[in-house]
């Protein structure tokens, strides 16, 4: 629970309110996605980050628009925190042509290059290389950009984690590895999949400095990642930040959660909900009225995004056949001409289906 500290003032207060606002936007988005997924408007798989909002908010508050992040299958919070619009995200999840990825990515493959968001990733550990590459790219192009990789504890048991941490360390690249240790790798407890308590000790094996922070505390995440960003920008190389957090929902929406007690979730969230925590940390610096207004604005923003998504068209069927290669929309281009022939074969048989979950998988 919150410590009895003096309420933050000045810039620290503004930061706390900004973090709180972002966490509430993420919470509203995630709860809304859950509702509309269960209501059949969102097809595919969706993985929620409720409980982990402080990590996304605290990390991205340190980043510039031209810095890069790579996210995970549990990436809605990271995407929103990096600056993607709720409209673009919700329309994407609703499989609409106006989605940020034109309805071709969905929850697990959402990206927004206009804000440096290099994508959620359907492959656990898929982001490590992308971040190493983005950091390497900053060095090659002689910019002071940094790149942040979000990942879970489960990903640290994959080979690319080790290869890329070593590569970033030995080349002193401006990368920050932000671990969301949420205690579960899919449906298996972290205690069953690794013998160590603190994953951050793995960073030491690559000569990389690390920090371990309370991942429910937005300020703590902000400060630790802020140090890492400063180190990376000034040529000091990569840092590993382990955020101890918790996944308050199942691995995916619909997960029967046979691997843990319901009381465990309630206990952790009662003690540590990052939004309640930040509200407590702000104390008198934030009135109840202001707090409620933040929630109301977030709900309004989400409702607007849903209305936008619902009024948006599904992608044209033609779209299925184009976009894998540059130039493939230009007649005469060999890939275009091949794809167009395939389109002509398939389109007469392409069924009319809805945009929601009832439309997929038949």
């Amino acid at each position, binding site marked *: 629970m919150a410590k009895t500290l003096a309420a933050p003032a000045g810039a620290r207060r503004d930061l706390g309110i900004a973090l709180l606002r972002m966490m509430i936007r993420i919470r509203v988005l995630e709860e809304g996605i859950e509702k509309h997924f269960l209501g059949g408007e969102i097809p595919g798989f969706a993985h929620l980050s409720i409980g982990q909002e402080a990590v996304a908010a605290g990390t991205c508050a340190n980043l510039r628009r031209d810095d890069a992040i790579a996210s995970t299958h549990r990436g809605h919070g990271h995407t929103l925190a990096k600056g993607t619009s709720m409209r673009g995200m919700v329309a994407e999840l609703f499989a609409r042509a106006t989605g940020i990825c034109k309805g071709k990515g969905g929850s697990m493959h959402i990206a927004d290059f206009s804000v440096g968001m290099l994508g959620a990733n359907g492959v656990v550990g898929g982001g490590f290389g992308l971040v190493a590459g983005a950091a390497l790219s900053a060095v090659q192009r002689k910019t002071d950009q940094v790149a942040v990789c979000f990942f879970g504890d489960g990903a640290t048991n994959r080979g690319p984690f080790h290869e890329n941490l070593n590569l970033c360390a030995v080349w002193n690249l401006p990368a920050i590895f932000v671990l969301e240790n949420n205690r579960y790798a899919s449906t298996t407890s972290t205690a069953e999949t690794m013998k160590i308590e603190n994953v951050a000790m793995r960073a030491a094996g690559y000569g990389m400095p690390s920090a371990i922070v309370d991942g429910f505390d937005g300020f703590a995440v902000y400060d630790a990642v802020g140090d890492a960003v400063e180190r990376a920008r000034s040529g000091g190389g990569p840092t590993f930040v382990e955020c101890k957090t918790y996944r308050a929902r199942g691995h995916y929406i619909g997960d029967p959660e046979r691997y843990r007690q319901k009381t465990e979730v309630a206990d952790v969230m009662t003690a540590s909900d990052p939004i309640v925590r930040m509200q407590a940390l702000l104390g008198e610096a934030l009135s109840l009225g202001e707090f409620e207004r933040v929630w109301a604005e977030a709900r309004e923003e989400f409702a607007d995004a849903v209305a936008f998504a619902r009024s948006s068209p599904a992608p044209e069927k033609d779209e299925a056949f184009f*976009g894998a290669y540059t130039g493939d929309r230009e007649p005469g281009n060999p890939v275009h001409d091949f794809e167009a022939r395939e389109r002509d074969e398939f389109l007469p048989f392409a069924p009319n289906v809805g945009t929601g979950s009832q439309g997929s998988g038949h």
Partner: protein
Amino acid sequence: MRTISFTEATLEAMQEEMRRDATVFLMGEDIAKQGGIFGQFKGLPQEFGLERVRDTPISEAALVGAGVGAALTGCRPVVDMHFADFITCAMDELVNQAAKLRYMFGEQCVVPMTLRAPDGITKSAGSQHSQALEGWFMHTPGLEVVVPADAEDAKGLLKAAIRSDNPTLYFEHKMLFPRKGPVPDDDDFVVPIGKAKTMRDGSDVAIVTYGITVGRAIEAAALLEADGIDAMVINLRTVWPLDYGAIADAVARTHRVVVAHEAVRVGGVGAEIAAFIGEKCFDELDAPVVRLGAAHVPVPFAPVLQEAMYPKAPMIADAARRLVRKTL
């Protein structure tokens, strides 16, 4: 035109593209200080420095993954795989990331990465250093696959691969590196991706092939000429996008086709070509298409075993001869 080796041709391509575009850089194992295991990178670090010609850890997944990340953020990385066989250590990065990101992100990004992959059967390199894997990647939407047959292709296709905004695999046969051939003097010479080249015109039978097997097909054509058979040789140059038009033209001209490659025959590039001809050019055929490729076994070590299991000129010539004489 000058006569230079395949290795020199690739070096010229790297130099010219690195001079032309400051975002081109190169990384791989043993390339900067050693100059590459086939000498294919000699002199590059002296001109471009160790930041643009990077020796790396033995971490194929990280190299390809970082190649993708750098390509997404404004660079044109060239990643050397050491041996094509080691692409297997980076399959997620190549197949799930590089190939798919542009499509699934709604064309927000490009992935201008080139993978250089020395491949093919060499002097007893054995099962894990001899494979030709292009068929896997033709099967993967989102990738371009080029396979040079000679010094001219080596230079022009490598430059095209580096300039391409798509992730491109460049399979260079290890046995081709020392082989010399004519190369145009123009430092802007590029071989367009997706276009085949007729190496030898002929009217009796077409040998459709690519990579090192082009040379073997030309040898076969000489053997056939002695028998009075006029063979056409098509060098595909690019495996994907495949030049279906050139294949259809060759069928229309000769009405008999041998498809040949060093990669395993079953499920290979030749299977796609033979199927295409069967579906789209059936009425032009005077005989069934013959497919030649390696036997469906790993490449063995003993020279006598190795040389027994993939097609060279005599086998290609025999297949063509039997097609023409209708003694299948």
